[in-house]
C-alpha cells in the first residue's frame, strides 16, 4: 500500500509574529463499528487565524463532522478514536489536555453550533438554564448577571420577547429560533473560535439567509474565528475567507474563496461547483448531485478516492494517492492534473 506521507499544513505565509489560533496537523479519526473500522478522517491538516473564517465543504459522509468535533474532543470515545495527529489551540495541545483544560476550552474558548438544534437542546430544561450555565462557569457570573447576559444574547441573535422566551422550553421554539438560540448559546461565554457543523441544513432558505447574516455580523463585531462546515458550496461564497474541500476523509483542495470559485483545480471541487443550483432557480434540496457516491471509508481505495467518479481519471490515479501540493499562491490540491481542467459545462 502506498501510504501517502503526512500532509503538512501548507498555508499562505502568516504576517510576521502572528501565529494561527488553531493548528491541526495530520489528524486521523477512526470509528469502530460492527461492520468494521471506518477511517473517517485520514490525515487532515489546516490552520485558522484570528478573525478568519474557514469553510469546510464536501458531500455527506466525507468526515467533516468527525474533523471539527474531534478538535474539542467531542466525539464519543466509545465509538470514535482520534488515532493520530495534533490539535493546537492558542498553543495548547488539545489532544493531550487534561479534563480541566478541556472544560475551560470547551465553551469558553471554542463554541460549537450543531446541525440539529432540536436534539441538541435539552427537552426538560428551560432555555434560561441552558443559556446561563456556560457564562456562569466560564465568566464567573452570578445567576442574575448570567440571566441578564442571556437576555442580551437572545436579543443579539434576533429573538423577540426574550424575557418570555427564557422561561420556555426548547419545544416551544420554532426551528429557526432554536438555531438562533444555539448560536447564542455557543457565543454565550465569548469564545474566540466558533465551530459550526452544518447549522443551516434543516432551515428554509429565508431563515438560512438570516442566520448567515447574523453570523457575518457577529464575526465582525466580536473578531471571531469561524470554521463553517457545509455540504453546500453556495453557502460558503459569502461567508468564508478560505475553503477546504473534503473528500473521503481527506482534504482534496484548499484555497481562498475566490480561487475556489473561479479557478478550482480538483475535479471534485469542479463537480461540486457544477452541482450548485442557479441562484434564480428555487432550491428545493441543497444536496449536490454528483453521479455516484463517495467510497466506503471502512476499506478506502488505495489510489485517489475520487477516481471512480472522475472525468479526468488517469492510469496512475488507481494505485497512487495524490498528495496535496502547492499549485498556486495559498492554493493546494491533491490531484495529478498539471493544469486546471476546463470547466465542464
Amino acid at each position, binding site marked *: 500500500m502506498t501510504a501517502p506521507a503526512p500532509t503538512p499544513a501548507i498555508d499562505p505565509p502568516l504576517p510576521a509574529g502572528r501565529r494561527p489560533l488553531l493548528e491541526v496537523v495530520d489528524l486521523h479519526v477512526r470509528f469502530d463499528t460492527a461492520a468494521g473500522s471506518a477511517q473517517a478522517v485520514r490525515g487532515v491538516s489546516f490552520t485558522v487565524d484570528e478573525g478568519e473564517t474557514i469553510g469546510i465543504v464536501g458531500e455527506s459522509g466525507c468526515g467533516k463532522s468527525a474533523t471539527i468535533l474531534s478538535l*474539542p474532543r*467531542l466525539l*464519543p470515545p*466509545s465509538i470514535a478514536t482520534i488515532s493520530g495527529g495534533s490539535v493546537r489551540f492558542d498553543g495548547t495541545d488539545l489532544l493531550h489536555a487534561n*479534563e480541566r483544560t*478541556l*472544560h*475551560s*476550552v*470547551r*465553551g*469558553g474558548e471554542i*463554541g*460549537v453550533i*450543531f446541525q*440539529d438544534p432540536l*436534539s*441538541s*437542546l*435539552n*427537552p*426538560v*430544561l428551560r432555555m434560561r*438554564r*441552558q443559556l446561563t*450555565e*456556560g457564562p456562569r*462557569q*466560564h465568566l464567573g457570573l452570578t445567576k442574575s448577571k448570567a440571566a441578564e447576559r442571556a437576555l442580551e444574547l437572545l436579543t443579539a441573535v434576533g429573538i423577540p420577547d426574550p424575557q418570555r422566551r427564557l422561561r420556555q*422550553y426548547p*419545544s*416551544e421554539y420554532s426551528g429557526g429560533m432554536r438555531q438562533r438560540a*444555539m448560536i447564542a*448559546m*455557543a457565543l*454565550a*461565554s465569548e469564545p474566540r473560535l466558533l465551530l459550526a457543523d452544518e447549522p443551516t441544513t434543516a432551515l428554509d432558505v429565508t431563515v438560512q439567509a438570516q442566520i448567515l447574516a447574523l453570523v457575518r455580523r457577529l464575526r465582525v463585531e466580536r473578531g471571531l474565528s469561524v470554521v463553517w462546515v457545509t455540504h453546500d458550496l453556495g453557502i460558503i461564497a459569502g461567508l468564508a475567507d478560505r475553503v477546504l474541500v473534503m473528500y473521503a476523509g481527506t482534504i482534496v483542495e484548499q484555497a481562498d474563496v475566490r480561487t475556489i470559485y473561479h479557478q478550482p483545480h480538483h475535479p471534485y471541487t469542479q463537480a461540486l461547483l457544477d452541482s450548485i443550483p442557479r441562484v434564480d432557480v428555487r432550491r428545493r434540496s441543497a444536496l449536490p448531485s454528483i453521479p455516484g457516491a463517495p467510497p466506503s471509508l471502512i476499506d478506502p481505495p488505495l489510489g485517489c478516492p475520487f477516481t471512480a467518479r472522475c472525468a479526468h481519471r488517469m492510469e496512475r490515479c488507481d494505485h497512487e494517492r495524490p498528495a496535496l501540493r502547492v499549485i498556486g499562491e495559498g492554493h493546494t490540491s491533491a490531484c495529478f492534473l498539471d493544469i486546471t481542467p476546463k470547466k465542464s459545462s
Partner: protein
Amino acid sequence: MSLLQYVVRRFLLAIPTIIGLSIVTFVLANYLPGDPLVRLLGERGAANPKIVATYTKRWGLDKSGPERYFVYMRNLVHGDLGRSTTTQRAVAKDLFDFFPATIELALAAIVVAAVGGVAAGMLAARFKSRWPDAGVRLLALLGSGVPVFWLGLLALEVFYLRLHWVPGPEGRLSSSTHVPPHTTGMYTFDALVHGQWATLWDALRHLILPAFVLGAYFLGLIARMVRASLLEIGGANYLVAARARGMSERRIMLVHALPNALIPVITVLGLAVGGLLAGAVLTETVFAWPGIGRYAVDTAKGLDYQAVLGVTILIGVIYVVSNVIVDVLYATLDPRIRIGR
C-alpha cells in the same frame, strides 16, 4: 396550559374515577358470603330485634341496591363508615388509627426504593459492564424476584437474629418507648417535630427493615430502569452540546441526563403505590406492623363487611390520588406533556 391549570384539571378528572371505584367496591362487597345482618352486626347483634331495626334504618337495608349505595355514600361523607365487628369500634376510627402506620411504612419504602434505585442505577450505568454494574444487577434481580414475605423472614433472620442490628418483629416501637404526641400518627415524624430524639431513634430502628423489605421490589425495578434509560440517552445530542459548553461529566449526569432518565421512572412510582399497598399487607403481617394491611387481613378473616368496604375504598382513593400526584410530577419533569406536544 400552566402547571396549576394542569393540576386542577387532573384532580377534577379523578373525581369520577373515585365515584366509579366506590360503586364497584360497594357492589362487590354485597357479594360477600353469609347473612348480611350477621356480617353487619355479628351473631349477637343480629339476634336482637331492636339493634336490627336501628341498623336497617341507618343503612337503608330494606331498600334497593342503588338506594343502599346512596345511603352508604351519605354516611361516608359524614364520616360514618359503620362499625367493625372485629374490633367493635367505628371503622372510621380504626382507619384513622391504623392508616398512619401504613403511610409511614409506605413513604419510607418509596424513599428507599427511589433514592436507592436511582443511586444504584446511576452507579450501574456509570460503570457499565464492570463489577458495580454486575453487583447492582444481581441485587436488583434478588429484590424483584424474591417474594416479600420470604424476603422479610430472610431479613429478620440476618439482621435481627444473627446481627442484632434491628429489633425483632414487635411493631412500631419497643414496649418501653412511649408513643409520641399525636400530630400525624407517623411516629418518626411526630417524634421529630416534638424533639423526642430517643423515640425517633427507636421508631427509625423499627421502620428501617420493613421499609427495605417492602421497597426492595421497586428498588430493583427502578435501578434497572434508571440504568437502562441512562445508557439509552448516554449518546444524546443535548449531552454532547452540554459537553461542548464546557460542563463537567458530573454536572452532565446530574443536571442534564438524570431528569430525562427519570421520566420513565415516574410511571413506575405510580405503579409502586399499588404494589406497595399490596406488599404492605404481607410486610405488615411479617413485622407485626399495626397498619391498614394488617387491619385488612384481620377484618377480612371475620367477613367484617363494613371494615372491608372501608379499607377497600380508602386504598382505592389513595391509589387514584397518588396516580394524580404522579401525573403532576410527570408534567413537572417533562414540559412537553403540559404543552401538549
